[in-house]
């Protein structure tokens, strides 16, 4: 007969063993994750280190040798003292925020109609919109620019709002429709019997229950527009009064000739707002991506 105490000790031992095994078996996974994460992080780290190095040092040696060299805040000072920085930051906000709101607004109403309302040609129209996803932006630039010029809005904010919203809508509608069609049919029918009109159903049931999808789409659109250089350059041009951060930052090089070390600092400054947006909406972001497949 084994005494109870021995049994307890054996049980404890077994428990500890299981724990150790669990920790050991998760080590390879963590190593792999760490490697991938650091590989991903290297370019950003290089940029960060370079942004604190003097121009000569950047030109003469790699950033990974930086520990032996000297650091400076000069790059940041130069960028911050640049006359147009504040204006450019404001311009970026003025481009990004209205675009994001317009995209979400139009896409959500359209997606609701595609998902839940019956009308002639619904599927065909949806397929056409999905088809637009594969149209390269570059193909549209000349005709759209011509149209904006004839309307006289080239180089103004409304032009870029329209352009960005238009480019963003196919994906946004596609994503939201997929999410909306996953909503419980009976919930909407129940509301219909309760006396809710389609607009009330959209505003008071569909939108509140789709916050995660809307938030993740909002982040996508925000980041995409914030980081865009091409579309801004074409429809807004380089005028300091309208140019967003990306355009201003790329101009730094031209203005200063060799001074591309400023780019590194400017790039980090331009990241601040998107990072804030991302982290404040992060919990929706993860949930939103999973939203279509795994419904909580």
């Amino acid at each position, binding site marked *: 007969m084994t005494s109870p105490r021995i049994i307890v000790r054996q049980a404890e031992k077994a428990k500890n063993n299981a724990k150790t095994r669990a920790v050991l078996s998760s080590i390879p996974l963590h190593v792999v994750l760490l490697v991938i994460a650091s590989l991903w992080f290297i370019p950003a780290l290089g940029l960060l280190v370079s942004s604190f190095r003097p121009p000569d040092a950047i030109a003469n040696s790699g950033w990974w040798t930086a520990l032996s060299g000297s650091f400076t805040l000069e790059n940041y000072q130069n960028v911050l003292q640049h006359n147009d920085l504040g204006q450019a930051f404001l311009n970026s906000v003025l481009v990004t925020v209205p675009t994001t709101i317009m995209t979400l607004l139009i896409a959500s109403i359209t997606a609701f109609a595609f998902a839940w309302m019956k009308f002639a040609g619904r599927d065909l129209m949806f397929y056409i919109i999905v088809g637009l996803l594969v149209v390269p932006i570059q193909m549209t630039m000349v005709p759209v620019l011509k149209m904006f010029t004839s309307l006289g809005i080239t180089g103004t904010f409304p032009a870029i709002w329209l352009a960005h919203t238009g480019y963003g809508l196919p994906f946004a509608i596609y994503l939201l429709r997929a999410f909306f069609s996953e909503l419980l049919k009976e919930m909407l029918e129940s509301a219909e019997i*309760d006396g809710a009109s389609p607009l009330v159903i959209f505003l008071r049931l569909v939108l509140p229950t789709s916050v995660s999808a809307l938030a993740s789409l909002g982040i996508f659109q925000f980041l995409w527009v914030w980081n865009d250089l091409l579309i801004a350059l074409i429809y807004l041009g380089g005028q300091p009064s309208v140019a967003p951060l990306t355009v201003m930052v790329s101009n730094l090089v031209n203005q200063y000739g060799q001074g591309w070390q400023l780019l590194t600092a400017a790039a980090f400054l331009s990241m601040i707002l998107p990072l804030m947006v991302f982290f404040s909406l992060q919990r929706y972001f993860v949930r939103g991506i999973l939203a279509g497949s795994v419904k909580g």
Partner: protein
Amino acid sequence: MRDGAVNTMSEVILKGVYKRYGKTVAVTDFNLHIEDKEFMVFVGPSGCGKSTTLRMIAGLEEISDGTLQIGEKICNDLPPKDRDIAMVFQNYALYPHMNVYENMAFGLRLRKTPKDLIDKKVREAAGILQIEHLLGRKPKELSGGQRQRVALGRAIVREPKVFLMDEPLSNLDAKLRVEMRSQIGKLHRRLGTTIIYVTHDQVEAMTMGTRIVVMKDGFIQQCDTPLNLYDFPKNKFVAGFIGSPSMNFLTVSVQNGMLNAQGLKVSPEGTLAQSLRPYEGKQVWMGIRPEHVGLKGFTNIPVGENIMEGEVEVVEPLGAQTDILVSVGGQILTAKVDGHVMVNAGDMVQLVVDRSKLHAFDLQSENALGRS
């Protein structure tokens, strides 16, 4: 709950109602007069058109043909909100971002009901359903039974002419289902509102309905009170669908007024014997419920020309009773016998049939032959 005579008459009348999806017909020529304050149950296997019919009454599906009348109004083209109905769904369909109170108040708010009246109605309904303590909770914090109660509450506060319930108990576990069954019954007596209730569960149908519509393939098979369905099924389908375990069917031939097959010789009596006369020399379905078959020597059924012989294949003891499956000349038959009768698989047994409970059905049309 009701203030004065709000809903005078709430009968529902369907005349020649069809539902077509392209070429397929989901519901065919549905005629039914549901009386005021009646508890009408639609029952049938899945895909029989019972839910579709309910959804047509609700206005969630268009009526392809025929007329629907609720109260005095023809409702074919009325939107759901103007039909004065409330619906309870199988999956509760609660609004997930609203708490219980808001869920129940939502419909009233949309109808611009004064705030204090909403409050009064919601609290009354919550009292009836014993969910007052849950009013501040979100649906995700509730159990299945509680959610279904909230869904019922949401329907009650509207004080509709007709309640429509689409398999409301199917998502609940067995014990809760029995509990909620009696609660819905109580609710019906208390509110006195017409209820149309859809289920695939014949036990639910039998225990709850004042009348039951049995459906199959979009056709009404029979509409009657629970006991009449049990005693006088119009055809083989209804006979097999109502009752558990379901009725035994054996092919037999009619010879000299007797039902004959290998291992059995039973003489029908009364009206059934007369109905069988034209079938002399032909084959028919003989139907007998398991509870009307006994083991010779262990039953009160008088022995006469009503004996079947066979080998026991399976014994299923359920405590109070035991179901035994007996092979009578190759045809399997279930008998419900006392729980303490000792029989084993492989035993040869003699079964006694209650002749007054015999059914017979035409082999081709499967329609019941008349019996009293």
